[in-house]
Each structure stands twice: as C-alpha cells, then as structure tokens.
C-alpha cells in the first residue's frame, strides 16, 4: 500500500497548509546558519526531495508496522490507517512549527508520485481479466464518470438554487460542473487498498479497478473543459451520491443485456459503494486557479472532506457490508474433492478448447510479451534484491502469522491443528510446522488471506484428513491459465511457478506424443529385419524403472495413458541383435528419445570409443546391465550426446520449435536430419543445472530441482544412446550432481523418485 500511502499521507499535511514557510527543520541538511534570506532559499531547494524521502521512509515503516498487527489491518484498511498517521504527523508538525509546513504541490504529485504508482498498477494488472471485461470497464469509466460529474455538478447547483448553500460561496453552474468532474474520479489506489482485503469476486474487482484506472482520462478532459468556465462553490456533496448510485444501476442494466455473466444486484451495490475518491481529486482541486475560482478554498476543503469520508467511512464499512450483503465472494465455500478436481479439469479443458478454436488470437503476442518481459524487463526493473526483499518481507509476514494461526486454531478450528498443517507437499520456508493457514492458502493459489475467508471455511465435523487432502490437492494442482488471482497474491507472485508448470506439462506431453508416435511407426517397421536407418525416435525414460524391471516386477505405471507405459523396461536383447524393434514389447517399452543428427548415417552400432559416431539405427535398448551402466548416475558415464530427428520436430508444436531448434542448434547440431557433418555427434554443453533457484525450498527429500529456462529444457528431454556407450568414458560435467541424485533415487522411496526422475532426467543429456 505504499502507493496509497504517499498521496494520502500528504493530504493532512497539505490540509493544514496555506503557504510554504521555512522553519528550522531539525536535521535539515547542514548549512551554516546564514542570513535569513539565504537560509530560506536553501530550504526551498532541498525541501521537496527531503520531505518526499521522509514521507517514503515513514510510510514504509508504517506499512511494516501495520502488518505486524494483522488484526488491526483486517479491520481497518491500510489507507485509513495511513491517513490517520498522516494526520497525526501533520498535527505534530503543525504544533511544533506553529504554521503549515509543507503543501503537496500538484507538480510534485503528478511528476514524482503518480508515475511509479501507475507503473506498479499497470505492471501487475491481470491483463486477461482486464481485457475480458473491457467492455464493462470502459462503459463504467467513460459513461460513469461523465454521469457522475454532471450529476454532482448539477446537484450542487440545484442545491445552490434551492438556497441551501451559504451565500458567500460564489459559484455558478460551471463551477459546480468543474468540481463535479474532479471529484468524480474514483481513485484506483484507494479502491485497491480497500478491495484487497475484502476479496470480492474477480469480476467485480476487475471492473471497479479497471474503471478507476480508465476514468482518470475522462476526468482530466472534463476538468480541462470545465476549467475554462470556472467559478465554483462548495457544499455538502453527499447528496450527490444518491444520484451516482442511480447511475450505476442504469449502466449495469444496460450492460447486463450484453454480458454472459450478468452482474448481480449485490455487486452493483458494492460498485456504487466502492467509489472511493483519492489523491487525484485532491491534486486537481489544488490546481484550481484561485483567481478564477473564488470558491477554491471551499472546494479544497470539500475535497478533503470527501476524500476522508470515502476512504475512511466507506473503506471501513465496505467489508462488513460485503459480508452482510453476501456478495458472491471470490472463493466459494470449500468444495468437495471431486468438485475441486473437476473444476480444475474443466478450466483446463476450456483453455484447451479455446486454443483449438483460436479464441483470443492476441494471446500469442501477449505471451511473447510476457516472455520478453520476463527475460528483460523484469531483470531491469526488478533487481534480484527486490525478489529477496519481497521474500524477506514475506518471511516476516509469514512468521508473524503463526500467532494468528494458532489463535485461530484455538478458537475451534480443530480440524486444522498445527500438526495438521504440516503437509509435506507444501513448500515451506522454515520448518513445516510453522505453516500458517494464510500461507497455506496462499501457496495453494486460492489467494485468500487470513482475514475474511479462512474463518468462514472452517468446517466442523469434517474429516481432518479431508482437509489435509484438500490442501494437498490444491497445492499440487496445475493452475489453469485463467486463474490469476488479482488481489492478494499480487505481490507474492511466484514468477517461476507458471514456467515450471509449463515445463513439466510440456515434457509429459511430449513424452506421450512420442510414445504414440513411435507406436504407430513401430507397426510399420515391424517387418524389417535388417538394420537400417530408422526414422523413429524414441524416448528413453526412466533408467530407474529399468532397474526395477530387471527384477521382474511389472513396471510401475508411470504412464499417463493406458496405451503406452512410459517406462523403459527390461530389454533383454544384446547389443548385437539387429532389429530391436521387433523384440521390444510395445507396451512396456520406454521411448528412447534419440535426437539424430542424420538419419542415414545410422549404421551398425559401432562406437569406437569416441564420440564421433552416430549411433546405430537400431537403438537397441540395452540389456539391463547395460542399462544400468547407462544410467548416468549409476555408471557415472552417461552418454551426453543428443540428436534430433526430423520426426521429433514434427511433433513439437511450431511455437516451440524455434526454441527447440535454438537449443538444438546451440548444441552445434542441426535440427533437421541429413546433416552433412554426419558423423558428428552432437553434444549438449553442460546444462546449467545449478539449482540456483530463488524458489521456495521444496520440501523435497531429494535433490533440488534444477532450474533451467524453457527452450533448453526441450533439448534436455532426451538422451541419446550409443551402442557401447557404456564403454565410452563420457564427459562428466553433470556427474557429481547425478551421483548425488542417484543415492536418493535408489532409496526406498521409489515412488518419489519416479516423480523426481522424470524431470531431473530431463536435465541429463
């Protein structure tokens, strides 16, 4: 709420101000006390930045301090608190200095304070939600603001006509209109401040937020227009609110005709109520030229009153109001496991079908932009230390929630006892026992904060295990594309989560595709007895499963479909056998992903101990022992070369192909088959497996997940084999890492390691 802090903070100070006066500011930059004139001049020089810096400092401290007490902030929106703080400080300064200290210059505001606020809002704006509702937002922003402005102005003028306005206020209709225009600007910052705590449903939130963002434009235009006609007066503005309410209803009715999801009556009430005024209005009013607007002071006073009123009163009451009116909230009550799962399923389905239909064609560009942003802009605009700082704050917040969590639990949330909260799957920063409910829910992406929602979702009499499972499921489920929580999780986005999820899913999908691809090709090749260049590529999967299979156990079904298990099982062929394909069992076979540099150089396998020969066409899954030797982490000598076959590239979707090709070509190979430098095996450079993730420490009993950018991961998704690769002392860049993993893989936790292997295997080349 830093954004809210700054302007609101300045208001009280300014409210007490008339003009600037120099005082002996303790701690002012050390200038030798010269003559009065000099002193004054220097103070003016340093005043602005000095005070701004001071504000920022105090505001930040205040914010942190406020968060120390969660209870307070759950009741009172931060903006209120900050206004109060500003008042207090302003009062202090006033008392000390006996005169107004500093006035918030509109120039300062517009030049220095507003741009970062706008950047912050714009940068984090949930764009999909925004554009989906753009029609509604625009309507409210444009029409709504116009309506508000006119009605406010007219109402005031009407009041004046009716004689309710003190005669000394000299204003005409135009003045009132001018005033109306500037006061009608709903302040996005203030809105955000309040709504963030309240968790209304996403639609409502984005509409109000979007409207507030866009209506500034309308406001300024109106203002300029009216300003040229200027004279105004002020009176009680509250009467105009009724008319605004009418306006909202009218607009909503019109909109509902066009919307797929109509806006409820209740939502409309909240929308009317949520129109908080803020600093923009204030800045504009200060800008009024006094000579032309004799009633300026009245306006200023009124604006201040209005701002205070809306922020404090409406801010304070909106939460109880929302609760009371049972506004449809962003998270409905905890559904059954079934519903939870199926809801996610449907979201994924819908996203997939939308892609098939080609809905939202601009997403391609949006995604490109996001990639660009992630790679460059984020690096520029948010330093690593920023991540860390956010993490630290999160830690503080997190730890300090424990007290609340415990007290919450004591109140009868017996289901979620503190031990019950130790879900092994939850990535926890400290020990798992310190999980707080809020952070559990945060992690699970439900975006809830402790304040309102959790209390409601306590179910009595429900099985404790169910609750555990719910959290497990929620935490583990892949998030479908749409689910960007607009509110609370805004500052705690895990940027990499989406990417990681994408990588995982992509790898799984690619594996499956290759499987099915291979199985269709397999049928075709079945009759050939001679070794010959084979075009299929198969993907080697799990070496560990290989080991298991050698024990004769049926391979654990890691397969995601019934049709093809992904596990490479025992291949009992020897290396000399010609056509391995015939002897492979189709179901059990893993796919060896051989990216082949060429398709015709695939001779009888003869690896001469050098890496210069392409493997034979018959990628013969080796005998178990060979396979074991194959396992990089076991043998310590994995073959690291990678080949790409043309068929593979056909399966990889076009969008990814660029990245795919990049990564492959970066391995000094060609992405397409007949390569002229046929014998050259391509090898991947040591992959950046350094687990340098700034990620939350997964509570993995095994190795840290390597972090790698998306395109290279495609290349890593396979590994090549050569005939006697076991004999080849391979490069061992990765070995130390692998070695470590090996131990854990072979631990009794076979189950876990399966999961782990899939993706760490991806790192092996």
């Amino acid at each position, binding site marked *: 709420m830093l954004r809210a802090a700054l302007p609101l903070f300045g208001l009280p100070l300014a409210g007490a101000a008339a003009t600037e006066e120099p005082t002996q500011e303790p701690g002012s930059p050390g200038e030798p006390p010269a003559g009065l004139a000099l002193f004054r001049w220097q103070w003016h020089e340093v005043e602005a930045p000095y005070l701004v810096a001071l504000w920022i400092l105090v505001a930040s401290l205040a914010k942190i301090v406020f968060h120390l007490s969660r209870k307070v902030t759950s009741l009172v929106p931060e903006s209120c608190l900050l206004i109060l703080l500003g008042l207090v400080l302003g009062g202090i300064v006033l008392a000390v200095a006996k005169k107004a200290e500093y006035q918030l210059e509109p120039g300062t505001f517009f030049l220095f304070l507003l741009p970062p606020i706008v950047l912050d809002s714009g940068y984090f704006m949930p764009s999909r939600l925004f554009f989906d509702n753009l029609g509604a937002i625009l309507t409210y922003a444009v029409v709504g603001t116009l309506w508000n402005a006119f009605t406010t102005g007219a109402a005031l003028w009407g009041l004046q006509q009716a004689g309710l306005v003190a005669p000394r206020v000299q204003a005409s209709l135009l003045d009132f209109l001018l005033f109306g225009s500037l006061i009608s600007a709903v302040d996005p910052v203030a809105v955000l401040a309040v709504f963030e705590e309240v968790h209304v449903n996403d639609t409502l939130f984005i509409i109000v937020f979007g409207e507030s963002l866009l209506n500034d434009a309308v406001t300024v235009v109106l203002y300029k227009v009216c300003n040229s006609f200027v004279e105004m007066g002020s009176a009680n503005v509250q009467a105009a609110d009724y008319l605004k309410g009418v306006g909202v209803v009218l607009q909503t009715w019109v909109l509902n005709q066009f919307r797929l999801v109509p806006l409820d009556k209740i939502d409309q009430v909240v929308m009317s109520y949520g129109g908080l005024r803020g600093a923009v209005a204030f800045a504009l009013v200060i800008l009024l030229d006094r000579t032309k607007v004799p009633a300026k002071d009245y306006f200023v006073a009124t604006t201040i009153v209005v701002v205070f009123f809306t922020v404090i009163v409406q801010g304070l009451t909106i939460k109880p109001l929302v609760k009371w009116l049972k506004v449809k909230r962003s998270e409905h009550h905890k559904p059954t496991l079934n*519903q939870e799962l199926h809801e996610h399923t449907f979201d994924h389905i819908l996203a997939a079908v*939308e*892609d098939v239909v080609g809905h939202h064609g601009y997403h391609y560009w949006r995604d490109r932009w996001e990639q660009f942003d992630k790679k460059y802009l984020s690096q520029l605009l948010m330093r690593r230390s920023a991540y860390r700082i956010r993490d630290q704050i999160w830690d503080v917040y997190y730890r300090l929630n424990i007290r609340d969590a415990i007290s919450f639990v004591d109140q009868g949330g017996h289901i979620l006892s503190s031990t019950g909260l130790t879900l092994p799957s939850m990535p926890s920063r400290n020990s798992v026992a310190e999980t707080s409910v809020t952070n559990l829910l945060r992690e699970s992406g439900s975006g809830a904060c402790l304040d309102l929602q959790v209390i409601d979702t306590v179910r009595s009499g429900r099985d404790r295990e169910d609750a555990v499972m719910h959290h497990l499921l929620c935490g583990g*489920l892949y998030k479908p594309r749409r689910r960007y929580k607009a509110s609370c999780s805004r500052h705690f986005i895990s940027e990499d989560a989406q990417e990681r*999820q*994408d990588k995982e899913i992509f790898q799984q999908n690619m594996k499956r595709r290759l499987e099915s691809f291979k199985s269709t090709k397999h049928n075709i090749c079945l009759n050939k007895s001679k070794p010959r260049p084979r075009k299929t590529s198969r993907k080697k999967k799990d070496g560990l499963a290989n080991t298991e299979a050698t024990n004769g156990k049926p391979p654990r079904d890691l397969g995601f479909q019934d049709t093809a298990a992904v596990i490479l099982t025992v291949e009992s062929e020897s290396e000399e056998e010609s056509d391995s394909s015939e002897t492979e069992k189709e179901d059990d076979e893993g796919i060896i992903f051989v990216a082949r540099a060429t398709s015709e150089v695939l001779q009888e396998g003869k690896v001469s101990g050098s890496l210069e020969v392409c493997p034979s066409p018959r990628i013969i899954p080796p005998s178990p022992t060979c396979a074991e030797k194959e396992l990089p982490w076991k043998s310590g000598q994995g073959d690291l070369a990678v080949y790409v076959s043309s068929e593979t590239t056909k399966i990889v979707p076009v969008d990814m192909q660029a990245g795919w090709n990049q990564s492959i070509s970066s391995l000094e190979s060609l992405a397409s088959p007949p390569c002229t430098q046929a014998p050259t095996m391509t090898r991947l450079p040591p992959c950046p497996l350094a687990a340098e993730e700034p990620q939350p420490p997964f509570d993995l009993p095994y190795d840290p997940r390597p972090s790698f950018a998306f395109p290279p991961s495609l290349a890593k998704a396979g590994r090549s084999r050569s005939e006697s690769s076991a004999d080849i002392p391979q490069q061992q860049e990765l070995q130390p890492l692998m070695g470590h993993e090996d131990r854990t893989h072979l631990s009794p936790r076979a189950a876990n390691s399966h999961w782990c292997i899939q993706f760490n295997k991806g790192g092996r080349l």
Partner: protein
Amino acid sequence: MGSRGSHAARIPDGDSIRQETGFSQASLLRLYHRFRALDRNKKGYLSRVDLQEIGALAVNPLGERIIDSFFPDGNLRVDFPGFVRVLAHFRPVDDEDPGMRDPKEPEPLNSRMNKLRFAFQLYDLDRDGKISRHEMLQVLRLMVGVQVTEEQLESIADRTVQEADEDGDGAVSFLEFTKSLEKMNIEQKMSIRILK
C-alpha cells in the same frame, strides 16, 4: 465477419451442420476458417499432428486428451463436421425456455448433460461407462505437479472415488459423476462465449 457472408456457401454441408450443432452462421464461418488454418497441408481433414501444432496445448495437462477427443473410435482424421461437433459441446447454453423445446428432438449438443458427458469421456478412457480408481489416478497424475508423491496421489484418488461413488462399486458412473457436480455451474464453466 459480415462481409464474408457470401463464403458461407463454401462450407460443405453447412446447413446440416448448423442444424445439428446449433451454431450461428458467423460462428460456423469462424470455425471453418480456423479449421482451414489448422489444416496446414490443405488435406481437407485434420490429423493429430495438426492439433499438436497448437503450442498452447502442449502446456496444457489435458491437452493430449482433448486432442484425442477429436478422434473418437480410433480415427486418424477428423473432418470439419467432426471438428465442429466436438466444439459444439462448448457452445453457451441457449436461454430459451427448455419447456418450449421439442422433446422429440435429440438433446442439443451443448446441453448440460452433453457437456458433462464430454467431460466424462475425457476421464473414462476405456469407455466402459465408469471412471475407475485407476483412471482417476491417471487424471490426477496429469493434473498435479510433481511435488505430490505417489502415495498421496493414490489416497487422493481413493478419496475422490469414494466421495462420488454411491453404489459402492469402486468406480464412478456417469450418473454419480453428474450428481457430484450438481452444484457446479457447468453451463458457464464449459462454455466459450465466442461460440454463441
């Protein structure tokens, strides 16, 4: 879109498709253009590879299954009517009074029941009319990230089936499936507005 109205005649069997699926002329046209765009080699039908080319599907955990749903009964190709038929499930539900619909006509493809059926067959791979625990487990595996262990997954799958299973056969039939989702707003969750 309106300017391309004359092209509607080019859609083979356009009228019967519209009759069957209930798409508007504009939507059908849009889908036709999309079909043509996906069909890179201008074969006149789509194969799996064409659909796999859609990048976004590759990062969707259910992407493969969705693609499979376009190729029922082991087909390798899908023509335009088949393409549209699948997509018709996602048409928003018509607002008209259900009582006015002719009860003798087959249920429209985008009815709630049919939407649910579509979802059901995404789970039920072997088409035996039930989602077994095994199938549920597979879906869970698809949808859940790697930090969840196998045992946890299995217990979740057990739980999920238990919750929905009423007749105790250890599997979720279509009716049980429907029942467990009766509170969910399927009409909204499985509709794409643009396909009105």
